[in-house]
């Protein structure tokens, strides 16, 4: 290892250490003991039945959405609009619900509608990116705000409950709810759907031509063009595809947990899903593990925040810090520096 590379690594370690120190400092500022906070998270999340079950419940949508992020980020398409796509999916599912047969087929169609709704919302950003070359980060974020406002209108207007008191929809028919898997828990069939999605996305990314195309476009769009791959089609398509997964997650949450449309369900999941996928290094098989880890963190911290130990936004600080530490850790992946140099020469 040359002296230059050694100093590079030292800087990475220092940068990561600084970020961690900031989190510790933030906890100290709140008058809490960082060590007891860490222990408290572990105790609540790992060693209580309720905490563990809550974390599993949260892992379901985060896994499905993390897979969508992994697909898009693999092609270096940065979909930050999963929150909007999730809303679009759950609205689509609830909108078709009254017309569905009340059996397994109806439940299947409900989830398919969620998938389609998310695909359409992601597809709008896909068209802006693929057809017009507009930045997908801006497009997906703006569509988040549009989706939030449309939802706010729908549940106070055309989709509000018959009683017209609370801004929420009527409940789904019991036949359209995902069945509970284990007696006396809230763990529903969505867990199986999430695991199925992991396998499907893993095959797609690691065994199929499409997955290879995503990787080529992500690594070098110029080379992709020479190989006969149109990066614009890939960009547009993968935005719709990852939107579809977010929409599916929305329909699963509605059907499995809430049973009706309301505001503020799945708060910030789209953002957390990004952290989930990045820490899993965009590997679909690691996404559920990462999602479970983040869920444990969230459940543990959430319990501490409710008890007033630390203010709740510590969750966001921690998510940001984890990504920064992950970025610093990326320096240590062997071929990393070489790739950067190759890109610099190529540019």
């Amino acid at each position, binding site marked *: 290892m040359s002296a230059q590379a050694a100093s590079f690594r030292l800087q990475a370690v220092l940068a990561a250490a600084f970020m961690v120190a900031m989190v510790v400092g933030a906890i100290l500022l709140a008058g809490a003991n960082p060590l007891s906070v860490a222990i408290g998270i572990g105790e609540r999340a790992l060693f209580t039945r309720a905490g563990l079950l809550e974390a599993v419940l949260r892992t379901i949508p985060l896994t499905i959405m993390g897979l969508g992020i992994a697909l898009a980020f693999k092609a270096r398409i940065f979909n930050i609009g999963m929150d909007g796509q999730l809303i679009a999916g759950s609205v689509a599912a609830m909108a078709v619900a009254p017309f569905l047969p009340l059996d397994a087929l109806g439940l299947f169609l409900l989830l398919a509608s969620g998938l389609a709704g998310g695909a359409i919302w992601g597809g709008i950003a896909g068209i802006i990116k693929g057809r017009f070359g507009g930045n997908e980060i*801006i497009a997906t974020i703006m569509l988040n705000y549009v989706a939030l406002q449309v939802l706010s209108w729908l549940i106070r207007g055309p989709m509000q409950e018959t009683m017209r008191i609370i801004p929420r929809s009527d409940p789904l028919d019991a036949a359209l709810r995902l069945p509970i898997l284990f007696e006396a828990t809230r763990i529903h069939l969505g867990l199986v759907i999430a695991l199925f999605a992991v396998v499907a996305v893993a095959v797609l990314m690691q065994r199929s031509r499409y997955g290879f195309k995503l990787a080529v476009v992500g690594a070098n769009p110029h080379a992709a063009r020479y190989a006969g791959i149109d990066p614009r089609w890939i960009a547009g398509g993968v935005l719709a595809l990852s939107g579809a997964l977010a929409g599916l997650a929305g329909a699963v949450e509605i059907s499995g947990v809430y049973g009706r449309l309301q505001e503020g369900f799945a708060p910030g999941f789209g*953002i957390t899903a990004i952290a989930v996928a990045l820490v899993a290094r965009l590997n679909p098989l690691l996404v559920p593990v990462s999602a479970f880890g983040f869920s444990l963190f969230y459940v543990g911290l959430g319990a501490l925040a409710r008890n007033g130990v630390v203010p709740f936004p510590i969750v966001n600080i921690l998510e940001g810090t984890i990504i920064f530490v992950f970025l610093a850790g990326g320096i240590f992946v062997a071929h990393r520096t070489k790739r950067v140099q190759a890109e610099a020469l190529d540019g």
Partner: protein
Amino acid sequence: MDEALFLSGLLAAGIRLAAPIALAAIGETISQRAGVINVGIEGIMLVGAFVAVLVTVMAGNPWAGLAAAILAGAAMGAIHAVFTVRLKAEQIVSGIALLFLGLGLSGYGFRLTLAQGGSAVQVPGFRELDLFALSDLPFIGPVVFGQHALVYIALFCAAGLAWMLASTRLGLMIKAAGDYPQALDAAGGDVDRLRFVCVVVSGAFAAAGGAFLSTAQLWGFVENMTAGRGFLAISCVVFARWNPLAAVAVALGFGIADALQIRMQTSYPGVPYQFFVIAPYVVAIVSLAVASKGSRMPAALGTPFVSQRQ
């Protein structure tokens, strides 16, 4: 006369609503011109907004709040610079992390300090300039002479930056860092140092935008109060083709659209207000689709640079 009064009020409000976006867009222009994209300015704006309110309340002076916000924004920019410029990390991912961090730090700090009292804190924020006779002029008075001091400072900065990029040695070096860093490197320039400084400065501008939001436009902090303004600022930069003065003009367009939708809400109570609220975002989405075609962004934007000199 009513129309003139309406138009004058609309423009004056539009400028006020545009100022935070314009300040952030000026900063993002500098950073992107040097080759570093920062998608986390939304997070920096939030930190700026919070720090400005906190220090304004503590010091009793909004200028102290602004100064503190600028320092905090520069520090946030420095984090992005360390990861993207020094460590050559993926710029988009670092920006996303910065967004989380800013969201978390501002909300966390707010709940530890200002939100503790329970009742709303009095914020001695900025007042509009009052140039006596000038500000009382019909129509142009409130629009041209009745704005916050920061609006004039922002305009001055945008003009100065445009001049700097177009006609100075430093401007040429910044453009080289963003378009063809190899050339700057070969000529003996330090690409990384230049990029580092530009990213720090862009953080300071974004935080100043946040400070305007919380101490001039509104007098107080609300969690996640920027509501996408940082991303609107980035779309201003793209729409303005990386020209700082044009970016301010585009921001003004967003500001006027925002002022207009607020007025429409009261004029058309029959239409659900949500349809008016989404107007600026829809304008941004449509303009993104229209403006991106054939636009030429800095060639090395988003690409980390590794010097080949020994």
